[in-house]
């Protein structure tokens, strides 16, 4: 059973073409999988492994390293409350407690209606605007408990202008075809850089 839709399969091939080694396409393909499904399924990882010529375990290793790749379904809106220093000093802890009781889920959980996932996050580089949070990776600054409630109501009731989770940018990377690197033909493979050469003292 194929994971990628026909359209995305084509796109996946195009992405692989961009790199001299197909393994380099692993992360862009994970993005594509998350864009398609909202999260990354085991089937997606297995198919990506096949596409880039490695094992599913290696794809899992890469995928699980990055928190923004979700390996479980998440809500339509992922809310990340910053918990690092500046925000913590400015009341991020209280904000998190408030958020947990307002949404009825613990940090890391999703609401049963599939609308919200609440997460604590590390510094979001907006220390002057503490406490801050992100909705689908878009900043909201100096958030108070009231503002949080208002935000949730707004998101829940209207078709808020935030892209669906998983789509990091509405503008896809586009590389003109004449700038593709493409896979290196086997004859032209030069030896790996000197620091990559492994040695067991065999000869």
């Amino acid at each position: 059973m194929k994971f990628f839709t026909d359209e995305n399969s084509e796109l996946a091939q195009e992405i692989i073409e961009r790199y001299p080694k197909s393994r380099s396409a692993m992360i862009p393909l994970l993005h594509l999988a998350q864009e398609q499904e909202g999260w990354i399924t085991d089937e997606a990882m297995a198919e990506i492994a096949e596409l880039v010529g490695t094992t599913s375990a290696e794809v899992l290793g890469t995928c699980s390293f990055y928190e923004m790749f979700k390996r479980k379904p998440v809500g339509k809106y992922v809310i990340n409350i910053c918990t690092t220093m500046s925000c913590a000093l400015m009341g991020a802890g209280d904000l998190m407690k408030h958020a947990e009781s307002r949404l009825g889920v613990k940090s890391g959980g999703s609401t049963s209606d599939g609308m919200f996932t609440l997460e604590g996050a590390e510094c979001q580089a907006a220390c002057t605007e503490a406490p801050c949070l992100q909705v689908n990776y878009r900043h909201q600054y100096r958030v108070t408990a009231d503002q949080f409630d208002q935000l949730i109501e707004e998101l829940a009731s209207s078709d808020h202008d935030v892209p669906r989770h998983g789509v990091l940018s509405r503008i896809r990377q586009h590389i003109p075809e004449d700038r593709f690197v493409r896979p290196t033909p086997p004859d032209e493979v030069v030896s790996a850089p000197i620091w990559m050469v492994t040695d067991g003292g065999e000869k």
Partner: protein
Amino acid sequence: MSEPTPSEITVTINGTQVEALAGEMLIAAADRAGVHIPRFCYHERMSPVGMCRMCLVDIDTGRGPMLQPSCMVPVSDGMSVDTESEDTKRAQEGILEFLLVNHPLDCPVCDKGGECPLQDQTMAYGPGESRFVEEKRHYEKPIPISDLVHLDRERCILCDRCTRFADEVAGDPLIHFTERGNATQVLTFPDEPFSSYFSGNTVQICPVGALTAAPYRFKARPWDLEQVESTCTTCSMGCRVAVQSSRNELVRYLGVDVESVNHGWLCDKGRFNFESVNSEQRLTTPLIRDTNDQRQLLGIDWGSALAVAAEAIQQAGPERVGIIGGSRLTNEDAYAWSKFAGAVVGTDNVDAQLGDGLPAEVVLALPPATIADACSADTVLVVGPDIKEELAILHLRLRGAANKGRTNVVEIGPNPTGCEPYAQRSIRCAPGETAKALSELLASDDPLARQLGEGTVVVVFGRASMAESADPALSLAAVIRTELPHATFLPALRRGNVRGALDMGLAPGILPGRTDIQQPSQALLQTWGGVPAAKGLDTTGMLHAAASGELDTLILLGADPLSDFPDHNLAAEAIQKAKTVIAIDNFVTDSVAQADVALPATAYGEQGGTTTNIEGRVSRLTQKITPPGSARDDWMIATELAWRLGSDLGLSSKQDIWREIERVAPSHAGVTLERVESSEAHEGILVQETSIELNLPSPETPPVADGYGLRLVSGRKLWDAATATVHSPSLQALAQAPALKVHPNDLQRLGILSGDDVRVISTRSTETVTVIADENIRRGTAMLPFNQPGGGANRFIDADAAVNDIRIETL
């Protein structure tokens, strides 16, 4: 990191000047100088990663001392190192305190306790106590990551040894670090187990008790183990192993690192099949066919069993006795049997190979190569069985050498093999036509032809398929000898000590010491008092003779022709028609069950002696445990039988036999018992002399397959129904039922779907087999593995045909 060059430079370690090789890592130079730097992640057979930071030492390269990981810093001239400075000690204490933040202190119930690098180095270099009071990580207790390996994630210190091994050495990156930070853990992909042929090595190199092997879990404590160094005889590679036992039972093998053979690695089959030695199914007492009920074997005393056997040999007379097998034996046992056949019975009907190898006179006459030669040759030409399946550690060595750019692997054969991922070129040709494919290549202006013609070439040489005779391989050898006279050969022979058995004369036309039966050495003639006049029959010849009533007594020396000989029907007919079948074995195999007399022999670990690997390297086997019941060494059985036939073999111990081998076998002259028992034998003693002249037939092309047939290709798998595997509880489930693989287009042409049961018809048999479509299989061929549980290719193969064709029909 660049290649260490012989140019030496001087570094100062702890105030002492030490010679080091430019390019090598500091930790390696320190090891050679006898200075131990503690480490967890560094392993001398894998690339350094600097994961664990345990090997931090004070290094001064002119800018003052700085703490740097010695596994990541190449030596440089004038470098000054202090491995015992205050800073180093503080660093070591700090690192251990960190490593123990999450590592549980469950040493009393941990299998690794007592031989654990983390435990030992904490005692030696640790701070004594920890400042951490936080809760440690908790995970589900051991999760199986494969059928053989269990993982305790909370014990893991993330050194990257197992994952590096899986990726870099084994080429099966099925385990990987997952998650990040405090949650980092080694895992497999869900439902995709770490089913590598080499998974057991990760258990051996794990510096903590995180990885444990199912066959050893909770079997013994390290301080209860007794250990000897020996040689693995599962295949003919001759890997060095440490054999460990507890309470007179084998419990574990560990790979021993020898430069010339296995680099410390073992395949899982060799590592875990010790279970079969401990099996309750072992043959422990002589058996004899019940005269009242022909279906039964009855237990009997040794004296009566030997008397029956001796009488059968006596009555048959020299021309009508045949001895099949011998690759299970040590060199000494093989010599005793060779002497028994040649000097007592007076027959040359002896063959250690079961019709699946190459003629002994060719194997022993080809210019020899070593494994190290192969790993440094400009080109290694692999023409033979799939070495990943049959000589797994040779595959590992060649893979390592090819990936490091030290050699180029070129393989010729019909279907994909385990070499393909690292081969420079995989030349695909029809089964049996390797000679033609190579001739065509060499005649072309392909750059590879020049590479072969001008560079050094080592040929890993064997029979590519069980379903073809030796002729295609011999034709190929003839082409190589003519076109590439500088090529040397590493024979890819099947089964344990097959090379040693051939050396000791267990092959038609061959006498001990790689001499032709027509040119016996004076010493041999004097000791034996005469040799058979003419070359005898090989295994195929003996089975034919027995089947047609020309051979009365068949002696099976650890051989099971019914499941191991390519042509099951011929073997079955021969065993049925022979008047007396005498089997000497460890188990009641299919063939032993048909025998008239069965004699129990000692198994691996129960006998000392020597063994010889495919290179001709003689290395020691060491006895560790006592045999079960009344099982005896094979040489003793030969001596007893000789005595009952009125002769004295004049052999009274293994040492005695080796002295006689050294005296009468020209190739082994100078390889004295003292040398064999000295530390020189750690690497094995290479014996390459031979006095046999090479005669190869001129190339022949096999017959073209008819349009309706598929040419059968068959090979062994690592996990098959081999006796030792079947009797090892941890391994017996790993072999899969055989399935016939055919190209999807061929199936479509026949109107058959993948997964269907079909009728397979050959000249020998018609049976029902499951067929699977596989687009990697060459069109017009069909691949069926050999000796799998529930059957295999041997029912379809005609041992006399150069190639075998089959037809497929729907049921």
